[in-house]
């Protein structure tokens, strides 16, 4: 039963990875940039949710919404200040800037409120346990799975059925051609950052309520692993990010279940290196050769 228990935990964790991975994959699909700061937006979201619940005494869903809105604005600010001037720079310059932004957010947060961890209030969601054949499932994990799935469905709708979603797909396919067709590339990129960051903010609040401990450096590992998830599913592909996130969570759950929980973080990177060597296009991607 321990096995299934870990599997359930893995799926809960995986849905958080999936939410962060969606932002990565959307941004990468459009500007071809690994937004290292994305994991830190996740951290900021967790803190906004925390302060919203403790100081403003909001309940879970308003806090979630507030964190999403604030993170969307934050994400757009990052894009406008740090990434937009580098639109035509080399990929490596953009990547280094992203690393710099990530370090700045982390250490800025430490500077503002100190490095000490904070405990999330644990009464924001009903903490019942459901017993199914000896497997205890916390109602919280069902709740976060539900919220994650709902957000993913909303995103899928936005990307495929709305005007901005169509613009996003067009820009990611060919930015120059999209510009010729009258699409504002800058606004579309900002919208992508806003949506991705909002999802990361939501993931932060969900992470906080589920794991109860948040700290300024908490975004680093989930951020990297969400990137692994995005690569696993095929970067730039939205369903791929979801499946990749869930799969990675399950892998980690299984590694923990086999008694190697100290190796959990290594497992994610081994998965990354294996997938990059054997299937660099990811599970859902098509193989494209570089043209000379």
């Amino acid at each position: 039963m321990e096995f299934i228990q870990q599997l359930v935990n893995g799926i809960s964790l995986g849905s958080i990875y999936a939410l962060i991975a969606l932002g990565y994959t959307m941004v990468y699909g459009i500007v071809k940039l690994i937004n290292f700061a994305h994991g830190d937006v996740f951290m900021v979201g967790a803190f906004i949710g925390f302060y919203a619940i403790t100081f403003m005494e909001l309940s879970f869903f308003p806090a979630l919404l507030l964190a999403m809105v604030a993170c969307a604005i934050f994400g757009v600010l990052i894009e406008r200040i740090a990434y937009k001037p580098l639109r035509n720079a080399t990929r490596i310059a953009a990547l280094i800037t992203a690393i710099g932004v990530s370090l700045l957010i982390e250490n800025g947060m430490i500077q503002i409120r100190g490095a000490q961890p904070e405990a999330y209030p644990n009464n924001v969601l009903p903490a019942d346990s459901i017993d199914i054949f000896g497997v205890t499932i916390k109602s919280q994990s069902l709740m976060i799975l539900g919220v994650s799935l709902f957000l993913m469905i909303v995103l899928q709708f936005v990307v495929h059925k709305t005007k901005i979603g169509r613009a996003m797909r067009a820009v990611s396919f060919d930015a120059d051609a999209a510009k010729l067709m009258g699409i504002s590339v800058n606004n579309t990129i900002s919208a992508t950052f806003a949506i991705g960051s909002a999802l990361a903010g939501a993931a932060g609040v969900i992470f906080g309520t589920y794991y109860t401990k948040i700290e300024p450096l908490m975004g680093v590992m989930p951020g990297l692993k969400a990137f692994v998830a995005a690569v696993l599913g095929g970067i730039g592909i939205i369903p791929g990010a979801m499946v990749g996130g869930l799969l990675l969570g399950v892998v980690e759950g299984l590694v923990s279940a086999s008694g190697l929980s100290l190796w959990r973080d290594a497992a994610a990177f081994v998965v990354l290196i294996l997938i990059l060597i054997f299937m660099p296009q990811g599970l859902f991607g098509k193989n494209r050769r570089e043209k000379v």
Partner: protein
Amino acid sequence: MAILKKVKGFWLSILLSFVLFIVVQVLISGGYLNAFNTNLIVTIGINIILAVSLHLIIGITGQFSIGHAGFLAIGAYASAVMSMMLEVSFLSALLMGGIAAALVGMLIGIPSLRLKGDYLAIATLGFGEIVRIVFLNMDSVGGARGMMVTQMTTWPWVFACLLVTIIVIRNFTNSTHGRACISVREDETAADSMGINTTYYKVAAFVIGAFFAGIAGGLYAHNFYIINPSTFGFLRSFDILIFVVLGGLGSMSGSVIAAILLTLISSFLSDYSDTRMILYSIILIVTMLYRPQGLMGTKEITSFFKRKTKGGMKDANHQTTA
């Protein structure tokens, strides 16, 4: 004549560096430098070795690797195990550290054949983390508690390693092989079609860079009394990356200068580690926004002393970095 001039310049810089060595040695043995400042000089030396070895991988060959702390860790642990548990001499412990890191560098170089740019960056970052987690879980080398190491690193050792690193990497860069590496950096597909064995040069850069990072690891391990997996996280990799980027991708003297400057700054800010990291990240962002080629671009410090000849003498590598 030109060759004679070049050779003369080489021996002149060797002579100058020996003068520097003797001056520092006299200062240390004469007791003019306290333990803090001596340690600072050793740290600067180690950081220069790291910066120059990463410069070969990123600046010359254009392989964006951000897992350099992994090589550092392997060198540190391998040499510490050699000198502490197998009790070999310090020199062979250092060499073993370098060789161990070079072997792993070869292993990492092989996947890098299939990866480019961002993907290689994230894969090497993952590699660095895997190395750290492996050492964290190895109880034979102390696990999370760390490993006790005798202090053996002295200024002459650091100087010797530094000199060898700089001469080897400088001569490699200026050789046919170095040109081939630069062509891989500029345009891999074009280099390949010109008959350059890109695979070979990418792996070679990884192996050489990793070897010297391993040597630096050995020096580092024997400088303090304890080594600990937590000091080899990816923040350490980013530190080394910042030396190379700030100095200018493709400029060895640039990375040396940046390593000296930033080590000095961070040692004076060591009481305020958060401020230090904020300063670092702002330096990184502002450099990328306003001077993406770094302090020195791809120029070397020697090119400032050269007289301009008619027709414009071409320096070693005046191209842009991809």
